[in-house]
């Protein structure tokens, strides 16, 4: 098992433990899990583009978008690190700047409304803010809403192209063996991870 996989498994186990113990995993706990601070370098790579705070905020948002359920959530598959890497490798400076300013607007709104940065808010407050962001309503703007859609697409990409996202949450068939035009959908059917 690679270090990254171990980390993901450990984080996933922590989250499950938290759920079992009835702990509400609030923002700061998630942020602590997501943040690269205080971890050995080899286990938790430093962010490539984002600051430590931005990476942690991305992790918190990612987990709120695709949370741990009966399968791992975005944090457990390191979606925030994937996003950080893809921003660095596969986008150009204007898109990178747009992503960071989108994150900053979320923190600004949290501070203005609640007096704390987003990651430090209790879970219900975070959820309420994200609802407003998702709808593009006060304190957010349609531009913020567009950023949130983009963020959701990054999170979905990072999560559903991860091993757990593709193979545990969805159905993944690398070699289908042939094409069948009609299969009946049952309660057990899951979306194909690849189209």
């Amino acid at each position: 098992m690679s270090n990254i996989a171990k980390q993901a498994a450990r984080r996933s186990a922590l989250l499950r433990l938290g759920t079992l113990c009835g702990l509400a995993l609030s923002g700061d706990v998630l942020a602590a899990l997501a943040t690269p601070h205080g971890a050995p370098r080899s286990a938790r790579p430093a962010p490539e583009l984002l600051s430590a705070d931005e990476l942690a905020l991305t992790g918190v948002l990612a987990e709120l978008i695709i949370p741990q359920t009966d399968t791992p959530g975005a944090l457990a598959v390191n979606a925030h690190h994937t996003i950080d890497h893809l921003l660095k490798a596969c986008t150009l400076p204007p898109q990178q700047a747009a992503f960071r300013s989108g994150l900053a607007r979320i923190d600004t709104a949290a501070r203005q409304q609640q007096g704390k940065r987003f990651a430090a808010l209790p879970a219900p407050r975070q959820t309420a803010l994200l609802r407003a962001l998702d709808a593009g309503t006060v304190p957010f703007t349609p531009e913020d809403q567009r950023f949130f859609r983009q963020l959701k697409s990054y999170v979905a990409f990072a999560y559903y192209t991860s091993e757990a996202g593709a193979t545990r949450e969805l159905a993944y068939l690398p070699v289908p063996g042939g094409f069948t035009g009609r299969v009946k959908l049952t309660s057990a059917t899951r979306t194909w991870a690849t189209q």
Partner: protein
Amino acid sequence: MESLSSFIIKSSPERFDAIVVGSGITGGWAAKELTERGLKTLMVERGRPVEHRVDYVGENRDPWTMPNRGKVDAVVAEEQYPVQRQCYAFDEHTQQFFNNDRDMPYSTPGGRPFSWIRGNQLGGKSLMWARQSYRWSDLDFEANLKDGHGTDWPIRYADLAPWYSHVERHAGISGSKEGLAVLPDGEFLPPFEFNAVEQALKQKFDARYAPARMIIGRTANLNKASDAHLAQGRGQCQARSQCHRGCSFGAYFSTQSSTLPPALATGRLRIATNSIVHSVLYDPKTNRVTGVRVIDAETMETREYHARVVMLCASTLGSTAVLLNSTSAAFPTGLANSSGVLGHYLTDHLWAAGADGRVEGFEDEYYQGRRPTGIYVPRFRNVVDKHPAFVRGYALAGGASREGWQSAAYKPGFGKDFKAMIRKPGPWRFGLHGQGEMLPRFENAVSLHPAKKDKWGMPLLHVDVTHGDNDRKMREDMADTAANILEDLGLKDVRKSMATAEEYPPGLAIHEMGTARMGRDPKTSVLNGFNQAHDVPNLFVTDGASMASGAWQNPSLTFMALTARACAYAVDQMKLGAI
């Protein structure tokens, strides 16, 4: 089989029977046909060798094992692949099969872009082509004669029909027999299946729009491998739909999977890779070509190869560029260009216009596997009734599928419910998009840039192409008609789409054709009805450059049939002592 490297040569004092320039769809076919007919043949390829299976480095890679999950590095894409990145098949798994634009530039006039998608390696674009395989009919071969655009084709469907059969049997085309006059049936393997929504829409469509019909796309994938294909070392399609990464099952037609193995098995084929053809050598005393001059892509050294016959299969613009650069006192504007039309009448296909919408119901229906083809509505415009706004016509292609996580971002919500929603297949969507015939016009032309050269000292190709009035009107009808059909079939939220001129530059359909066209009259065409140069009898051009018009079907199957036919003719002529 021996490894590929044992067939690769650098310099050779030998005089071959034939030289084939290029190793893609037509080069592979030429090598197969010529060697099987007894000719010692040299295939000359400007790019690197690519060995079947061994060099498919992007294949069998799960997304989470790719450094960028399938996405291409942004700086690399911008600096080295600004054109190739526009191709739908260009990604982290396939990047190695695309031409590096920085190393191989070309020129366009300001404000008139042209996107030239290239695969310069052994196998060429046969490695990552879209595999749609359709016969043309006399509607297409007679079009120039009937409406006066372009010059008359020197052949008709009957000339090509047996050669279509020949190439289909070997390549392996999956499709359904339909008995349609506009799209003749071929030698098909069993067709891929429709899904539930496509089946329902087909029933409605066929009833309302007869004689137009919705059929399954005919594709060069072995939906069921025949014994002949198994004997080629090829296996059945696994429905991964990752063809353009290379397929170790050999389940789609490529040079590597299908034409190279029998050519190599004859023992008569040699391959010179990394050999950029500078020009075709011409002897004015005999009025014959004698071989090719090449520049070594790695060492920049110049060398020559000699043969009794030269077949240009270097891609539409590649072959024409070679002819334009082969100048002599006899042919000051390019080899075999006494007509003056070499470089002219470039066409591509019209596309990026159509519609899509949501299909209600069918909640309990899904599919399994990723089908490497879609559905297809063969041409219906200007078949019987004349359209008031434009001549010629188009096909509509598309398919139905259920939404997956890819569209999740555009839906409201987040959290557990959002995740649960994505876990279940989303609503059905269905779309139809056009692929239409662009008229051949003299002013759409390529030439050699008078000053600019690439790093091998080769003059840059200058490509000057625009869409015309007929082209624009046809595209509008594609989008309007697609949207009307979808409304009529009962789809909801129908969205018409038509890319702007900037979003779809000519070339990006990757069906560039013409510039060394076939014709009956040596004064107005470069090649005769056997793809043989009117001016120089032992010179042939069998790729897309030879097309006198572009029709509306994907052209590769026609390139294959023309090549096989030209090779048989060339060998007969050699035996007769005529060349």
